[in-house]
């Protein structure tokens, strides 16, 4: 039981980071399907930095920086150069895949995986559950109320929401629409980058294409969670639960392959269930152009 709970929390961690990130981007009106690539780049940066410095926490910092970098590229291409946000996201995902594969040879001399890495830890005095629970998971859980405050109780959050709903209205009040959207996208890069760090550091290895579609599941969780931190937490826990069932549920008549499909099936079902019944930010995906 405790095992299943811990498993759920662990598998949910990268999804939670990425989905909260996606929330800030989309609340500002920018679709960020580059989350997938950001997770991957974050995972790689964390592995490289942790391997060469010997400090997993430096790895986390590197992942955040790399995530922000890739997100900045997305914001620049889609806001400044007016490339469609989906096209930019797809391109960055491909870039992330190619670049990490290439850099693996340079940094680790291998095309498949990195050497073994250490995970970030807390002092052993922190108590048993806290030791069992990876610190990044704790951080992800803390990010939920923090995001909620930022989005609903802060000046920045109000402005970001206004920009994602009705950029013309925000502009008419003199708010810098694109700059606010830029910040929203950068925030998504920082959060998803941290999610990437969890992927590689917690597995003790960086493996080629290790994000494996989690960025997209995070986007589904964002919709299923109705663009709210609390809802996103619930959605990612559900997806995390579905994925960690694999190791805990042993039904002889159910093929293992099917169990692996479960999170993806659940994603589809969840989306079919909510789509049409809830509405995202009104201006999401639409570039604001001032004339």
């Amino acid at each position, binding site marked *: 039981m405790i095992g299943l709970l811990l498993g759920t929390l662990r598998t949910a961690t990268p999804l939670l980071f990425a989905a909260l990130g996606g929330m800030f981007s989309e609340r500002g009106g920018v679709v960020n399907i580059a989350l997938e690539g950001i997770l991957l780049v974050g995972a790689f940066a964390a592995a490289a930095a942790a391997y060469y410095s010997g400090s997993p926490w430096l790895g986390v910092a590197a992942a955040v920086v790399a995530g922000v970098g890739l997100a900045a590229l997305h914001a620049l291409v889609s806001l400044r150069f007016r490339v469609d946000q989906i096209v930019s996201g797809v391109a960055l995902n491909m870039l992330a895949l190619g670049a990490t594969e290439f850099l693996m040879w340079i940094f680790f001399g291998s095309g498949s995986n990195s050497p073994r890495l250490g995970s970030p830890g807390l002092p052993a005095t922190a108590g048993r559950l806290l030791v069992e629970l990876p610190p990044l998971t704790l951080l992800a859980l803390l990010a939920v109320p923090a995001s909620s405050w930022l989005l609903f109780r802060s*000046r920045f959050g109000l402005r970001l929401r206004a920009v994602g709903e009705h950029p013309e209205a*925000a*502009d008419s*009040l003199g708010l810098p629409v694109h700059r606010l959207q830029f910040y929203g996208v950068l925030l998504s890069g920082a959060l998803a980058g941290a999610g990437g760090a969890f992927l590689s550091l917690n597995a003790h290895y960086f493996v080629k294409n290790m994000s494996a579609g989690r960025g997209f599941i995070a986007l589904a969780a964002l919709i299923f969670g109705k663009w709210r931190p609390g809802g996103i937490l619930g959605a990612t826990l559900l997806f995390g639960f579905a994925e960690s069932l694999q190791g805990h549920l042993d039904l002889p008549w159910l093929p293992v392959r099917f169990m692996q499909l479960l999170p993806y099936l659940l994603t589809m079902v969840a989306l079919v269930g909510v789509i049409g019944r809830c509405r995202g930010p009104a201006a999401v995906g639409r570039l604001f152009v001032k004339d």
Partner: protein
Amino acid sequence: MRVELEALSRSFPGVRAVQDVSLAYEPGRLYALVGENGAGKSTLMHLLYGMLPPDAGRILVDGRPVRLAGSQDAIRLGIGMVHQHFMLVDTLTVAENVVLGAEPGRWGRLDRGAARAAVRRDAERFGLAVDPDAPLESLSVGEAQRVEILKVLYRGASFLIFDEPTGVLTPQEARGLFAILRRLRDEGKTVVLISHKLDEVLSVAEIIDVMRRGRHVGRLAREEAGAERLARMMVGREVLLRVDKPPAAAGPPVLEARGLGVRRRPGQAELADVSFILRRGEILGVAGVEGNGQRELAALVTGLLRPEAGELRLDGRPLRGLTPRRARDLGIRHVPEDRQRTGLVLDMSLRENLILGEEGSPAAGQAGVILPGRVAALARRRVAEYDVRVADTRQSARALSGGNQQKLVLARELDGDPRLLVACHPTRGVDVGAIEYIHRTLLAKRTRGLAVLLFSSELSELLALSDRIGVLYRGRLTAVLDADVVDEETLGLYITGARGVADA
């Protein structure tokens, strides 16, 4: 504060929207700015509000020239603007909308208590009752407008611009607004009311400026202005302010609605138990505040939406499973409310636009092949007949003015003597000349037996053209009135639900 505009000019590609306009505004007065659609009123005020940079000229506040890099600069100087299209965020509350961009609170925190208090304070002072915590989407149009005014006041504006604020209001709401404008003026603020409705301008403004084709053509004190004189200055020639409606000669029923209904859905209003009869040679107007089911009713009759209850009959035969294509084949035509998005394909030529929906007919081609010669001949005839002012029918529809675009839609929809026309806001945003033309055309077709279902938010237009006027309120047809015996004031009571079924 004293504001002067000096020789302001501003062009857009192909249009000189504002040309060499100089004006001065004194504090504590109520001004109006009138002009036809496209005269440049909004553009001029956008220059003053910092939303657009001028190409030439300058703006002086209290004698000092100012540079406005954006609306935040204008706001800082105390200039505020209530826009023609509301600039409100539906998912935020009233208080959030009001303080957005100038939020109270320290360390990045949003102080909701202070926001609420600020809204209450201004609301009380200026008689603008709204609940600060109400989500914006729950408000009526009149309330939403009060939020726009509160936004401007919250920023400490002493110069307030209202861009066509009454376009969306009922006559009663408009009167409430005018009371607010006077109150603002009494507090020493400068108020500029942009409008093209002469009667309302004459009833509130003290000083009236007239624009025509980008130029300022005169300033009149209310006492010396009259509707006729203003209209002449706006248009540059004599205009008929009323149309002559020949007596009705309604024939047998063309369209019959029996208990029509559709359910409420996101983006769709409810319609319940709507029954009426529309006869040959008759114009049935439909009045209502936007969102009370007009759009749905028009969609039902044109086959864009299927009824979930009740039925429609055309010439006594039930219209089951009506599609837009079949509706066309049956002689039902449609002038949609948004000519640019639904009525035309702007980047296609006039010719192509004129055969849309008839691509398969012998008038356009044969055996699935479009014959350019036939299309050109058809287009030339229609363009001439419907007074579309254009040199070459190969031009794209985008290049036309609003009035000519609308005549293009009419040419396609009315040619060939259809049975029934569903006309949605046929004169919205077109110039006076085109309005006159469209009104005359509709009445002429009526005389020839066309049945028209006319939707309009301009009560004066409904009264001028319709034989009878149905009122939609919350999806129900609450009254069908004889157009000769009602006036705008009474219609205003009906469309807000103050009168209707309940007291009948």
